[in-house]
């Protein structure tokens, strides 16, 4: 039972384009939704996160859009650069729960072509 579903599995975008990755969750107890970026041979790195009291959060070229009623959230990478080529994971957890285990989506491999 996959509680966080992520799409697409892979994405190719031209330099300067917009990369969009979508996630949907099932557990309504989730109240913290981070995105992680992972380069080959490295650990996942926290990129940006959102809580359900806001519908959008922007940090530089990265924006999270959140739709609580639809239980969906998405990552937009504006002006995509070759250095953004990586695997991106959405995740969800309960902010105050002891342990705060992250439930991850399946990942999206993004390739930005120069």
């Amino acid at each position, binding site marked *: 039972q996959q509680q966080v579903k992520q799409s697409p599995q892979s994405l190719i975008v031209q330099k300067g384009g917009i990369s969009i990755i979508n996630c949907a969750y099932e557990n309504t107890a989730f109240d*913290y939704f*981070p995105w*992680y970026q*992972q380069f080959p*041979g*490295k*650990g*996942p*790195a*926290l990129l940006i*996160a959102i809580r359900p009291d806001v519908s959008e959060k922007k940090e530089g070229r990265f924006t999270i859009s959140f739709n609580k009623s639809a239980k969906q959230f998405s990552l937009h990478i504006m002006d995509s650069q070759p250095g953004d080529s990586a*695997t991106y*994971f959405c995740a969800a*957890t*309960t*902010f105050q729960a*002891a*342990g*705060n*285990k*992250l*439930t*991850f989506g*399946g*990942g999206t491999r993004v390739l930005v072509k120069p």
Partner: protein
Amino acid sequence: DTAVSQTPKYLVTQMGNDKSIKCEQNLGHDTMYWYKQDSKKFLKIMFSYNNKELIINETVPNRFSPKSPDKAHLNLHINSLELGDSAVYFCASSLQARAFFGQGTRLTVV
């Protein structure tokens, strides 16, 4: 200054052996984790410790035994290694759900 460091980075061993992975964090976080990333890149929680106390054990075989000697360390010992244990194991620590991961240990069982 490495925030979450784990050793070794690579581990190749034969079936049936016992091995350990060590993890240390210098972020002052109370909560530490072990995650497993399989060959399809899927990340799944294995264990979570809060202040040295086991909080989450996510139906992991008994052959896996975590140990937290103090808040800054969380080690993973694996007995009787099997081919299916081959994966990348990540240690992480967190403060209020913001989790920071180590660079991973790629375990290959042959």
